[in-house]
């Protein structure tokens, strides 16, 4: 029982990342009709926003410590962060410690700008082109983004820890009547789950309860009619591209402490996210979220030793098996709309 609860928690946690990326992906598809293979790269850039802010806050000057030597036997160069010398050791250290949560604020304008630049500079020229062209150009763009990040940050993963207060695990077992330390789950992963829920809720509320969102939804359903009403739907869709980029970026920022960011982390999520979108139904926002959590949970259960002992290697294929089964029985995906990707 404890193993099942742990894998449910794992599944929800994995599903949060899948859902957040897939949400942005399907938002772009639903509004602009673009299959964006650079979406994983936006997730990666979000994670590097956290790395960048951490580096900015940790900017240091160097003092020579004559009492210690470096690997060449010269006096050791010790880095002292400016934040610590300006605000005192305790406050300075706390600012650096909280760099990942602070990066949420940093990443939103950065990701919006990147999203606008991508859409205005490149994507808009491919609206009326076949999906294959869109895939090629956005995939190429993803590789360019990767190489830029690699050029500046190197290929090695960069540790970007969560604030110290979130180190350690929460004992769920005690809450559910189990012995202590039987069902524990890392604090930061719980934060990630909660954060995802808030972002998903915010996106849905924005689309549901604002006039802007209503126009966007109308445009998603019938772009031409909305245009005939004199509404500049393109401008709104451009903004939605920026918002989708920001959602992917936020997912990346908060993921940085879970696995050290590296330049190709976006590619690791890209294919999975597309499967999530297809299973959920192209262009369906609730479908993307539902499929994200469903596939995340299934993937976690497939990793259990009991399951692997019966179906060796199932953890590597489960998502694709489920995707095939769902598409065979529901060709439009779980919550796909009629007419989308069917012309």
């Amino acid at each position, binding site marked *: 029982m*404890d*193993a099942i609860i*742990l*894998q449910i*928690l*794992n*599944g929800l*946690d*994995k599903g949060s990342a899948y859902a957040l990326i897939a949400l942005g992906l399907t938002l772009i598809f639903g509004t602009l009709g673009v299959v964006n293979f650079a979406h994983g790269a936006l997730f990666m850039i979000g994670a590097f926003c956290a790395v960048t802010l951490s580096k900015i806050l940790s900017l240091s000057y160097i003092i020579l410590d004559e009492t*210690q030597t*470096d*690997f*060449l036997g010269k006096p*050791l*160069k*010790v880095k002292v962060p400016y934040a610590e010398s300006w605000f005192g050791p305790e406050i300075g250290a706390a600012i650096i410690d909280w760099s990942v949560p602070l990066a949420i604020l940093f990443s939103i304008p950065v990701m919006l700008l990147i999203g606008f630049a991508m859409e205005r500079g490149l994507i808009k020229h491919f609206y009326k082109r076949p999906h294959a062209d869109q895939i090629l150009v956005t995939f190429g763009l993803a590789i360019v983004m990767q190489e830029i990040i*690699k050029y500046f940050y*190197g*290929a*090695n*993963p*960069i*540790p970007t*820890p969560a604030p110290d207060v979130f180190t*350690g*695990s929460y004992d769920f077992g005690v809450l559910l009547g189990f012995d202590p*330390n*039987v*069902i*524990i*789950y*890392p604090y*930061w*992963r719980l934060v990630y789950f909660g954060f995802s829920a808030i972002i998903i809720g915010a996106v849905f509320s924005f689309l549901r309860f604002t006039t802007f969102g209503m126009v966007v939804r109308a445009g998603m359903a019938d772009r031409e009619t909305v245009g005939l009403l004199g509404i500049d739907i393109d401008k709104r869709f451009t903004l939605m591209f920026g918002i989708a980029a920001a959602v992917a970026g936020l997912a990346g920022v908060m993921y940085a402490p*879970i*696995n*050290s960011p*590296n330049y*190709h*982390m976006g590619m*690791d999520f890209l294919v999975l996210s597309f499967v999530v979108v297809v299973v959920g139904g192209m262009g369906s926002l609730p479908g993307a979220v539902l499929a994200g959590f469903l596939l995340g949970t299934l*993937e*976690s259960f497939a*990793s*259990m*030793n009991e399951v*692997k002992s019966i179906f060796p290697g199932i*953890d*590597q294929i489960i998502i694709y098996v489920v995707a095939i089964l769902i598409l065979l029985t529901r060709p439009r995906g779980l919550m796909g709309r009629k007419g989308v990707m069917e012309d």
Partner: protein
Amino acid sequence: MSKLNLTRRGVIKTGAAAGTALAMPTILTAGSHAGFTNAPTGSSVTLGFNVPQTGPYAEEGMDELRAQELAVQHLNGEGDGGMMNTFSSKALKGNGILGKKVEFVTGDTQTKSDAARASAKSMIEKDGAIMVNGGSSSGVAIAVQGLCQEAGIIFMAGLTHSNDTTGKDKKANGFRHFFNGYMSAAALAPVLKSAYGDDRQAYHLTADYTWGWTQQESIAAATEAMGWNTVNNVLTPLASTDFSSYIAPVLNSGADVLVLNHYGGNMVNSLTNAIQFGLRDKMVNGKKFEIVVPLYSELMAAGAGENVQGVIGSMNWNWQLQDAGSKAFVKSFGEKYGRPPSNSAHTCYVQTLLYADACERAGTFNPCGVGEALEGFDFDGLGNGPTSYRADDHQCFKDVLVMKGKENPTNEYDTLEIVEVTPRAQVEYAPDHPMFAGGQLGACNPGA
């Protein structure tokens, strides 16, 4: 006046005969410089450095390339000479190899076997590389080693730690200076016993490819021999990034040690995930839970950050060693690049020197002559103490380092500390050891 009958066919025949006659003495006098692939004809010789320049191990590949460039400089008599000054063999004179200036070309393995073979093939066929060196993966090393065997080129392996490289996949044209999974296990077992006791329950997470399998087999055998019990061994896909669903079952498995048979990004992520789940803070079976990473790399330790603190693993070499060879190499590398070399850089540097030295001692670039010079070669002064290239399987035997993640690092390079230098005798094994069974070294192939 006689009439000379000149026909087109006659001229061609005469020309061909004359050309053959003129070329004959050259071919015969070329002796050892002919009859093998890419025999150098000019004043230079080309080495092929096949390293990951893109992909997840690109950082490690770049460090290998730095060391290889340094080795070429030293071979050509530039710089301070580095380990050439401490190498026990004095055949290298700083005038290239056999009097020919050393040049090099590079290839990108991308840490993919097919890409690595393609880049090695291109260096051999288009650039005329006479030797291929480098790499950061056993899958790649085995693939490129096979290609070099077919092409008649010497392969001086870079970082490859699978038993199979000099086990079932060994080749006569391939040579490995780096240690292997068996040696890691043999070095680690006594240290683990003294640190954590002989009554432990070990849970293994293993990367699902050649290196992971042989590493797991080796460490499980070595720890079981000293009394540990292997609770479970779970194979994890190489493409995994989030290991939480593999770590969670460890919590209540009864295990009190987690062995991460992972390398590179897998190691960084699985170790980070294990620490997040609080494994190192747990008490199981009345003992503190411990994590072991059998194969360490400085670059990956840096990627894992403070998560490596206190975690035991092994290495082929480390820049903190204080022997004359290591100090010379660290000084040379550090002054040129402003950073200490990694152990993958070290093995590539050493392999390049060893190849050049073997050519000098053999008096030829012919791979069969070079191979003969390397087989059974005993040397010292290259950072690992007295070392031998065993003729039976082309594996180097030398001391192995047991490392531990440093508790209070002083800078970004100061992530690991040396716990023990395990003597070579403790990590040696018979050529017919079951873990290395299958496959034949075969005969050396000189190629063309």
